[in-house]
């Protein structure tokens, strides 16, 4: 005895409990991996100095040192924003405002106090104004001159060691002043904005929007020379851009629509200060702990967090060294420092570092998971569609029914189909659209089958279809009439006539001819050459082909003489020959213009070639004509129309078509060309709509049914499902062609005796197929079908060309965002592998499960 072969590893050998644990843990890993906390944290850090004074102003000088000023003249020095200390102050007045440039740091406040310091010295110099006014803002112009605005509307400039009064044109309170080179802006109450172009010596009133006419514009600022923003104490944001080359920024102001809940222009916050970090990025502070960031010039303003416990803190000023580093100061000695432009940190995925695999996965897992689901969805439906269609096609291909049998023995069925089923469905299609047309067709067929069974059950003498039996002597006539109606169609007035074969050919040819695409000759070949030309109307092409088919069938039926003798075949051949020679002769006589016939070599060759082809085909069609005798057993006829197997021909056409065109093109043709997805969606929506109406008559049952209908409608025919439907059909239809061949091969491998045995116990052909042949054939072809299905999964990646966001397309999107090409495509590949591998395992299981002992060589026991 041979030693019994042991499989080294088999899934089955793992105890069931372990298998369950394995799957459970995979599920847990996939679904329950904690999403890292999706919160935000403040990026403001509090600076600790032992002082409880309210801080009112802050600047950062050109050394990068911070100066914070507050009540009682307190001055805080923050060296490089890190070493914080209290410095000696030359004043005890409350300091309210400060400014700095390359050379100076200056501050001012209540009772006319103004102090300044040169950058290089450590000494604060007091240059108080006499008139004891409250100075609201101080700024330095292009000449290093200090300019202040007061609560009473005064403007003074410190020129040559003296304060110079400037005409302010107003007595409104002035809140803020700022300079950008020689240009200056002042904001005040009653929506006032003043502008100066000459270092603050003269000022003019600038236009502001009507809506802020009553508001106090409490802060104003430039960003370089091309953008300026201002804020009101009520929370409005004003913006100014340079409108034309001749004007400068600050002339005209617009109010920003802030996207808040009620689309007002105000944030309902009492703002205190404004800092402009870039042309569009601005920081705002306000009372009650308000710090807000807008990254788009004030359209969207997002409040940012302060460290806990500062909710009600009044924030008075802010100073930024650049777009990221800066401080805000507020009441009660609070100073906060940021290195992140004040923007909140999203905790958990902060500053996604896409070159870090963990964070990359975190960032992309949703996309890839969605893609995987989308792929699996079309794959499952595609496989189901492909499999069932494949089986049907394979059965059609192996069906022995010939045209003769179909017409002769199923005459009654054919009649009902031709004269009732098809016309009614066509009418229904024209009246109600293709959906109901198909529905009508199917219901007519199923109703007549049910009726037939009922009638033939009652009738012990079960004769004919639906109890109709056309008597022997009339059958031929009926077949001839059938042929005639194929030729001429059903002429009904009112535009509802059904075209016959002749009509179809005629209208198709007229269509072609009407295009006049470079050919006026009656040469048939010249006309036919433009069959492909009517772009956008391939239906004319199809009409032509269907027309030719119908005409051919019609002629056959008319010529038949009951027993479908060879005469018919010869008549058919005769017609074929007539057509052939008509074409050749028109080609010869029209094409060569015999009047001026040139006997050159090229013309002679064409002439000869045509005649040669003609004679060759004639001899092929009537091969034994020369022998002058036709034996009874002459079976060498190349075309015998009666032994045509229509089902086989249709299936062959189908498989040939789908196997000989690229899948990519099929995808595009089906989705963009035929718009199959759109049509199915329309049909589906119509159909589910009708169902919903029907179900509404069902009373209480409706509550149960209508959500179901709704769900089907949503999930299959809802918006955006077109490419989904198209993808399923493209994949399914294509795969069906290949699966058909595989299944056909397996059917062919079943010994013909099985069919005979099945038939001999009285089963019908279909019954034998279903109960005996297919169960065996499918078992044989599980492995190649598995290949087919794996192919389908892989081919599903082509669905990305019709904008279906499956795995590959998601991969492309992820690459476009993250630029991580290796990881993205690697993960996509692994995802595909997982799908196909699972499929392969399932099929292997299925194969093992359905294995029949003693049937076939399988390697197992």
């Amino acid at each position, binding site marked *: 005895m041979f030693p019994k072969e042991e499989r080294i590893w088999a899934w089955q050998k793992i105890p069931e409990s372990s298998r369950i644990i394995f799957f459970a843990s995979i599920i847990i890993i996939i679904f329950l991996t904690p999403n890292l906390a999706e919160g935000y944290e403040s990026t403001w850090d509090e600076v600790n100095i032992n002082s409880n004074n309210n801080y009112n102003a802050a600047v950062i000088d050109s050394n990068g040192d911070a100066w914070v000023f507050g009540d009682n003249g307190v001055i805080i020095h923050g060296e490089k924003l890190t070493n914080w200390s209290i410095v000696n102050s030359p004043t005890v007045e409350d300091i309210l405002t400060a400014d700095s440039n390359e050379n100076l740091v200056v501050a001012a406040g209540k009772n006319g106090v103004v102090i300044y310091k040169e950058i290089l010295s450590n000494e604060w110099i007091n240059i108080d104004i006499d008139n004891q006014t409250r100075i609201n803002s101080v700024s330095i112009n292009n000449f290093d001159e200090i300019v202040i605005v007061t609560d009473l509307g005064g403007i003074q400039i410190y020129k040559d060691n003296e304060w110079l009064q400037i005409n302010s044109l107003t007595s409104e309170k002035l809140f803020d002043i700022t300079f950008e080179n020689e240009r200056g802006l002042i904001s005040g109450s009653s929506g006032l904005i003043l502008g100066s172009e000459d270092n603050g010596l003269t000022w003019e009133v600038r236009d502001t929007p009507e809506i802020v006419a009553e508001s106090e514009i409490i802060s104003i600022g430039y960003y370089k020379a091309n953008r300026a923003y201002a804020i009101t104490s009520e929370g409005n944001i004003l913006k100014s851009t340079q409108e034309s080359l001749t004007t400068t920024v600050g002339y005209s102001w617009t109010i920003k629509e802030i996207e808040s809940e009620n689309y007002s222009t105000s944030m309902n916050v009492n703002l205190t200060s404004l800092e402009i970090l870039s042309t569009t990025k601005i920081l705002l502070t306000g009372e009650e702990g308000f710090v807000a960031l807008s990254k788009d010039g004030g359209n969207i303003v997002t409040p940012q967090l302060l460290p806990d416990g500062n909710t009600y803190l009044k924030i008075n000023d802010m100073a930024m060294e650049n777009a990221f580093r800066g401080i805000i100061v507020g009441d009660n000695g609070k100073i906060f420092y940021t290195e992140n432009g004040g923007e909140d940190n999203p905790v958990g995925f902060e500053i996604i570092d896409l070159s870090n695999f963990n964070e990359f996965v975190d960032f992309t897992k949703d996309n890839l998971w969605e893609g995987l689901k989308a792929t699996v969805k079309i794959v499952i439906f595609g496989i189901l569609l492909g499999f069932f269609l494949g089986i049907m096609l394979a059965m059609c291909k192996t069906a022995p029914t010939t045209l003769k049998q179909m017409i002769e023995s199923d005459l009654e069925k054919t009649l009902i189909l031709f004269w009732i089923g098809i016309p009614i469905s066509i009418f229904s299609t024209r009246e109600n659209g293709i959906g109901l047309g198909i529905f009508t067709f199917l219901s007519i067929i199923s109703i007549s089958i049910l009726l037939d069974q009922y009638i033939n059950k009652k009738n012990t003498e079960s004769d004919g279809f639906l109890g109709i039996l056309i008597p022997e002597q009339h059958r031929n006539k009926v077949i001839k009439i059938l042929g005639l109606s194929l030729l001429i169609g059903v002429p009904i007035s009112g535009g509802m006539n059904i075209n016959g074969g002749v009509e179809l050919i005629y209208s198709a040819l007229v269509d072609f001819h009407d295009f006049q695409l470079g050919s006026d000759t009656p040469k048939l070949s010249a006309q036919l050459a433009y069959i492909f030309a009517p772009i956008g109307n391939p239906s004319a092409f199809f009409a032509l082909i269907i027309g030719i088919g119908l005409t051919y069938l019609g002629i056959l039926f008319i010529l038949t003489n009951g027993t479908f003798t060879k005469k018919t075949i010869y008549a058919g051949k005769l017609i074929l020959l007539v057509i052939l020679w008509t074409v050749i002769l028109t080609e010869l006589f029209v094409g060569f213009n015999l009047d001026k016939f040139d006997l050159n070599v090229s013309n002679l060759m064409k002439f000869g070639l045509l005649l040669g082809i003609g004679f060759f085909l004639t001899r092929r069609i009537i091969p034994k004509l020369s022998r002058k005798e036709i034996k009874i057993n002459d079976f060498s006829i190349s075309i015998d129309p009666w032994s045509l197997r229509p089902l086989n021909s249709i299936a062959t056409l189908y498989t040939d078509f789908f196997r000989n065109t690229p899948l990519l093109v099929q995808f595009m043709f089906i989705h963009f060309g035929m718009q199959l997805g759109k049509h199915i969606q329309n049909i589906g929506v119509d159909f589910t709509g009708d169902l919903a109406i029907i179900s509404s008559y069902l009373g209480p049952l409706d509550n149960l049914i209508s959500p179901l209908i709704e769900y089907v409608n949503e999930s299959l025919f809802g918006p955006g499902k077109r490419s989904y439907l198209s993808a399923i059909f493209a994949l399914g239809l294509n795969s069906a062609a290949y699966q058909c061949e595989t299944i056909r091969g397996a059917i062919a491998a079943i010994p013909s005796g099985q069919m005979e045995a099945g038939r001999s*116990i009285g089963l019908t052909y279909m019954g034998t197929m279903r109960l005996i042949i297919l169960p065996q054939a499918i078992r044989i072809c599980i492995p190649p079908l598995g290949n087919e299905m794996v192919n389908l999964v892989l081919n599903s990646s082509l669905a990305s060309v019709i904008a279906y966001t499956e795995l590959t397309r998601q991969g492309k999107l992820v690459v476009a965002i993250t630029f991580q090409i290796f990881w993205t495509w690697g993960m996509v590949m692994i995802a595909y592998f997982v799908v196909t591998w699972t499929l392969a395992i399932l099929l292997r299981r299925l194969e093992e499960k359905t294995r029949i002992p*003693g049937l076939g060589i399988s390697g197992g026991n």
Partner: protein
Amino acid sequence: MDDDVLIVEDLEKIYSGGVHAVRGVSFKVKKGESVAIIGSSGSGKSTVLRCINRLIEPTNGIIKLNGEIINNPLADVNEIRSKIGMVFQSFELFSHLKVLENITLGLKHVRGMNKEESEKIALEVLDRVDMLDRIDAYPGNLSGGQKQRVAIARSLAMHPEVILFDEPTSALDPELIGSVLQTIRGLADEGMTMVIVTHEINFAKDVADRIIYMDKGLIEEEGPSDIIEKPKTDRLKEFLSAMDEE
């Protein structure tokens, strides 16, 4: 006349390809009679059987079952076939079904019986062919003789008017033949109408009421089983002596 179950008149068959396999064969089978058809290879015996069952369409001729013409294009083939049992040389059991299911299949799907009824009949016929002990086996795990007995049971289950045997034993080892012949003999004793194509001359002589000798598509000699002892035609003599030599 009335007890002729099967009548074949002037049966002719030309295969597509031109082989004139049967050239006008007529015979009758009475109820309860068993007829053996013998003849050399290629003489058209199988063709005759297949025509009767309409597995192939005869070119000419009439076949009547219980007085009804069955080779008319409008006759219900499936109905006719369910009344005519057929046992094949190569068994043709449905290999994906167990023995019991092989037999109940026709009862369920052709006769429309339910599970209990069909299994009752199946067990009955399996008992008749002595296969009750293997009802749960797959055909692949049976011996040749067992397979053929199951195949006979499958035909019997349909309660046919007549059973056609096409060389039921020629695919079997000599030691297995016995059991199958035993079964057929039993059926003959029970009065089953049968047409048996066979190469087992002794068996034909023993079981058949009548023997038909076919040669080149024609019936050369026909008569009761003693024509084997006293053949009239030279052809049959030659055939018998050739068989004896084997």
